[in-house]
């Protein structure tokens, strides 16, 4: 079920946004509108939906409108047109009070430059959302203390913000958002101000937390690697419009256009692509009872050198056999079972290519890809690996 659903969302900055809206509808580009009216189209007719418990990453270069977009989701920016449904309620129709309740209970935000209150201590910062809600001092202290512990800042409660490192600051930012126990967390380039090493730590920490919390996260970034690492699905934003929404693997495999192709070129594909993404589904499978002669015909017809021996009932892989082995079997009148190799390598479909490369070095056979039930679903050759990485 989708937690957030955005329909035709448009945000125009300037004095007369409604007028400009007509131009957007007529299909004028952002640049043309800016030249003509001096007003900026932040985002233009954006559609997407975010599933419950999903990490949805919106990726774009600076000026692409990603910050504008995320600020529309909690109405820090008032959209010019369009609808935003959260749990099937259009939040744009909220009055002031409803909006406050929505912000207090359902949604929280983490900011690029942390947005921490330098006049408050660490724990006072974390307490802020609860304080605004009107919780008692004790309640909010207890909750905040627990939350700080969860983000690894135990013992730092009474420090000043200025005494913390960048990474710690963003942990406070995260804790402040989490303390409210929101259903949705908006993260506006939360790690871009951090050192690369610290950023990596934060990534794993976030993934860790998320595996326990299962919040709906909307995450903004300009970093492709970050997007693909964290995102269950990624939306690529360009000039205020969404170019493609898909899983990271799908985007790499099937970029919607040259822009995205360019975008994903520099990324470390071996860390993104999984066995499932690069495997070839088409494979010659047969039972071990098949006559070698027939098996050879099958392989020759398909123009492949290998065949996979499958247990008919369970679809489980039993072994692998080359066309040369089969020829030998015919000559020596042996069965497939006698000559098949069981020292093949198999990987789960979610294993990253980076790991498969190492496995591939140890075997001369194609690598089998298995699903959760250990059923054979595809094969990977060394050549396929190389191609996937280019």
């Amino acid at each position, binding site marked *: 079920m989708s937690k957030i659903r955005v329909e035709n969302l448009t945000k125009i900055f300037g004095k007369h946004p409604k007028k400009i809206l007509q131009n957007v509808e007529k299909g004028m580009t952002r640049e043309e509108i800016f030249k003509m009216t001096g007003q900026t189209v932040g985002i233009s007719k954006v559609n997407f939906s975010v599933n419950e418990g999903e990490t949805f990453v919106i990726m774009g270069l600076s000026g692409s409108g990603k910050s504008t977009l995320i*600020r529309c989701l*909690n109405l*820090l920016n008032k959209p010019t047109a369009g609808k935003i449904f959260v749990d099937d309620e259009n939040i744009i129709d909220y009055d002031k009070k409803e*909006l*406050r*309740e*929505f*912000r*207090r*209970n359902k*949604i*929280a*935000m983490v*900011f*690029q*430059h*942390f*947005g*921490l*209150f*330098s*006049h*408050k201590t660490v724990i006072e910062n974390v307490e*802020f*959302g609860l*304080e*605004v*809600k009107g919780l008692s001092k004790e309640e909010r202290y207890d909750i905040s203390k627990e939350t700080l512990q969860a983000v690894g800042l135990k013992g730092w409660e009474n420090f*000043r*913000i*200025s005494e913390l490192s960048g990474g710690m600051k963003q942990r406070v930012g995260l804790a*402040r958002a989490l303390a*409210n126990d929101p259903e949705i967390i*908006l993260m506006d380039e939360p790690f871009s101000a951090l050192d690369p090493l610290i950023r990596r730590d934060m990534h794993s920490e976030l993934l860790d937390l998320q595996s326990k919390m299962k919040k709906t996260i909307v995450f903004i970034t300009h970093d492709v690697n970050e997007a693909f690492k964290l995102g269950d699905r990624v939306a690529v934003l360009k000039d205020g419009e969404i170019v493609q929404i898909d899983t990271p693997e799908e985007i790499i495999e099937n970029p919607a256009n040259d822009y995205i192709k360019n975008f994903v070129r520099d990324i470390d594909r071996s860390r993104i692509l999984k066995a499932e993404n690069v495997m070839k589904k088409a494979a010659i499978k047969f039972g071990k009872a098949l006559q070698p002669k027939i098996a050879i015909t099958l392989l020759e017809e398909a123009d492949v050198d290998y065949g996979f021996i499958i247990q008919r009932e369970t679809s489980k892989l039993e072994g692998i056999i080359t066309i040369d082995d089969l020829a030998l079997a015919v000559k020596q009148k042996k069965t497939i079972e006698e000559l098949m190799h069981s020292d093949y390598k198999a990987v789960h479909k979610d294993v990253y290519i980076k790991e498969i490369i190492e496995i591939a070095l140890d075997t001369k056979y194609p690598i089998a890809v298995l699903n959760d039930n250990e059923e054979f679903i595809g094969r990977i050759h060394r050549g396929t690996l190389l191609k996937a990485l280019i």
Partner: protein
Amino acid sequence: MFEFPQIFEFKIGKVVESFVEWLTINYAGFFDSIKTGILFVLLKMQMIFEWIPWFVIIGIVFLVGWKVKGLKSGIAYTIMLFLIGVMGYWDQMIMTISIVLAAVIISLVLGIPLGIISAYKKRVDIILRPMLDAMQTMPSFVYLIPAIMLFGLGMVPAVFATTIYSLPPVIRLTTLAINSVSKEMKEASQSFGATPLQTLIKVEIPQALPTIMTGVNQTTMMAMAMVVVASMIGSKGLGYSVLIAINRTDIAMGFESGLSIVFLAIIIDRLTQSIGTKYKYD
């Protein structure tokens, strides 16, 4: 020489004059109640200061000076204050402090809210700006005379004149401070569902406080600068001693009372300044 043609002449001042006179006659009650209010504060303050023994005041200044600036400064302030007493200007100093303090308090009470409003409302800011310029540059005697008409002679018009002069820095710096609170911080506050008032009280004002404290310091110094002018409309205190000295060409008295003002100004400046820096966060 090109003379400005007379046909263009129009007496704006005349309008103001009749307006002041009209106010004096028709709103006497209103201005009297303002006067009573200000006077009440002033007299209470003066009473308290007069009630505290001189050595206690010196002691407090020493302790505060020591705490916020260090031992040497504490001692220096003590000596300065003591010297004021030695020269025979203790009572005058107390009166001066009362007037300065009253003006500063009024400036803050009016200035901080006005500063906040003009930070929020661009239009108010645009209207306020030239008025603040006028308040700071208009020679004070120009509005002193109307002030006397409305409030009578003495401390009240002195406080009024001093306030007019010392209000602008509070307003300006408050506006500046509120405007320069980081956008993300404001957004953060909003994003948690804070009401505008909550954002103002919990985030914007605390964030603006260091700058506002600078404003308080400036305001106090400006109020100090006005004490001689204030004495010209019959307010007592150090300024009046200076005025007498000037009029009598009494160099000794002029020097002593002038020096007392300098000492007092130094002490007030350093104390308010260091209290201001205590508020800095980062």
